[in-house]
């Protein structure tokens, strides 16, 4: 596999600069995303890896401006295919969503409309974005269902979402997301709710379609295993910041940030049954009261005085690698 080898000359499809998202409520302000910068090239799969509260899903939703406008404060810049997403007017935003950029979710049951058949829903999207007739749109829907390998696709067109199994529903949602040939696919834990034997099928399908269609993809997951199956590069998020980024094979083989190392040690995968797992102690920080320094410092065995005073600046110890840690040279946990 091409573990992280991507054409370096292609201009970025997505570039996010210093993205900050805050949720303001009457009681408090949650600092969900705190200065995130990354870019994705066409045809590249970036996995954003993080635990709950890391800001990975919020970042993804910000890319499509899906966050509730009333209580969300977004700053920074998001450029998708040359368009400044944060400055788009509602009409341009609608063209962007589902046209240039589309999204698949964890729970297809909530993302699909329960009162329309699968065929109607896909056809509706095609008609809206391409302005074709219903007949043409339905034919396209059938093509798409075949593309995502739904068995006996023609009869499935007339099924309602609840009549499909979890795996088929997820495939139907992927078909809908691909209906207008997006250049950027956003995936929010699309395989997390699926059974193990179904998850791997959907992952392989997504990987194949992504390659065939050359889509840039941002894939949010909490699962290192899923990332290892699909990512070209991964960005590890913690408390709203990207703490480490690099080609997937390099990061998994040689994690730089203590959090990434801790996460890998915590992920149960063939550990010695007679020993405890090297778990990271403590809990993630409260996003309403982030510490002034490195947010991971309170749980980090390598933390020193300088970690507590200021948020570490990104460092680039090797080509394509980034980590926000001031103790990068320090040997790993004892």
């Amino acid at each position, binding site marked *: 596999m091409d573990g992280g080898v991507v054409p370096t000359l292609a201009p970025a499809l997505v570039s996010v600069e210093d993205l900050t998202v805050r949720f303001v409520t*009457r*009681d408090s302000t949650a600092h969900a995303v705190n200065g995130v910068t990354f870019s994705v090239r066409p045809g590249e799969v970036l996995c954003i890896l993080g635990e709950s509260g890391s800001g990975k899903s919020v970042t993804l939703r910000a890319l499509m401006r899906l966050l509730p406008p009333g209580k969300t404060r977004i700053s920074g810049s998001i450029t998708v295919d040359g368009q400044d997403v944060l400055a788009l007017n509602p009409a341009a935003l609608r063209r962007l969503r589902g046209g240039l950029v589309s999204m698949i979710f964890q729970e297809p049951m909530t993302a699909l409309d329960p009162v329309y058949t699968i065929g109607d829903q896909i056809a509706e999207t095609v008609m809206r974005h391409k302005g074709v007739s219903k007949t043409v749109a339905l034919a396209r829907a059938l093509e798409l269902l075949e593309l995502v390998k739904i068995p006996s696709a023609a009869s499935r067109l007339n099924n309602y979402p609840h009549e499909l199994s979890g795996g088929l529903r997820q495939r139907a949602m992927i078909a809908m997301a691909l209906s207008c040939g997006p250049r950027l696919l956003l995936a929010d834990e699309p395989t997390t709710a699926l059974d193990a034997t179904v998850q791997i099928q959907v992952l392989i399908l997504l990987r194949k379609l992504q390659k065939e269609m050359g889509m840039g993809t941002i894939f949010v997951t909490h699962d290192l295993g899923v990332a290892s199956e699909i990512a070209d590069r991964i960005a590890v998020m913690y408390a709203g910041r990207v703490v480490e980024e690099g080609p997937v094979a390099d990061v998994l083989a040689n994690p730089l940030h203590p959090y990434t190392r801790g996460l890998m040690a915590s992920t149960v995968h063939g550990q010695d049954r007679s020993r405890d797992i090297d*778990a990271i*102690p*403590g*809990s993630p920080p*409260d996003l309403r009261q982030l510490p002034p320094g490195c947010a991971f410092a*309170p749980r980090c065995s390598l933390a020193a005085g300088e970690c507590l005073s200021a948020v570490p600046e990104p460092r680039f110890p090797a080509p394509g690698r980034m980590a926000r840690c001031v103790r990068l040279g320090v040997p790993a946990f004892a």
Partner: protein
Amino acid sequence: MPNTMTLPTSMIEPAAPKQRGYWGSVGNRLRYDPVTVFFGLVVLAIILAAVFAPLLAPFDPYKESIIGRLKPLGWKGHWLGTDELGRDILSRLIHGGRVSLLMGVVPVAIATLVGGTLGVVGGFGGRKVNTAIMRTMDVFYAFPSVLLAVAISGAMGGGATNGMIALSMVFTPAMCRVAETATAQVKNLDFVEAARATGAGTLTILRYHILGNVLGPVFIYASSLVSVGILLASGLSFLGLGVKPPTADWGLMLSTLRQSIYVNPVVCALPGAAILITSVSFNLLSDGIRSAMDVRM
């Protein structure tokens, strides 16, 4: 079981999040909600005025005057004028609040107790119990509430007590349904199953795990019924099915003053304004409390 077990320090949670408790955060939300605070104060003022009516009323609410009938606002110290028998409107409004509040609150309290209990039993009990209770309630539900109240107090005769009984019967089915829904929802949650798994009996589970979670929605609904109660009670009095003259009551006042609407429209409208202000205040207060209690953290 040996009681000496020491966990390695790495397994001990270092700190708990510092937050307010549930009621703390509800209180905090209310504090920053000026609308609810304002109408809360209005409701408090109305209640206090009713309780201390004899001290606050400037005149005897039953003292009639042949010459001072239907006088305008401010006439001879009568700030809000006088009614068709020359009685002081302000004093009658203050005294009338007692009856109206009582008619609003007592039936709701009775309905909460009776309907709430039936609802919890129906929600937690088996299918047969549930069907028996809920279908009976549905029969009452089938009638429009005003019609039912009028029919019941019409059949039993007027008077404040019968009016309250009628309103209680109107409110009970609604209260029962709210309690039943809340109970059925809580009953299926994991912590109730966990309590069953520890071997707890039905009554213990009801007492410790169901009631606390059902009371919230029940009280919120009850507080919203108070304003309906005041309106219906006034309606009954207006129709002559509630309290009897010469008792000071807003609905009754509205009914007797309405014949004089061409003589002094402002004074005639005052009991209506009192009903409106009170019921709106109760409504907005209960609305505010509901949104403050709707904390999903």
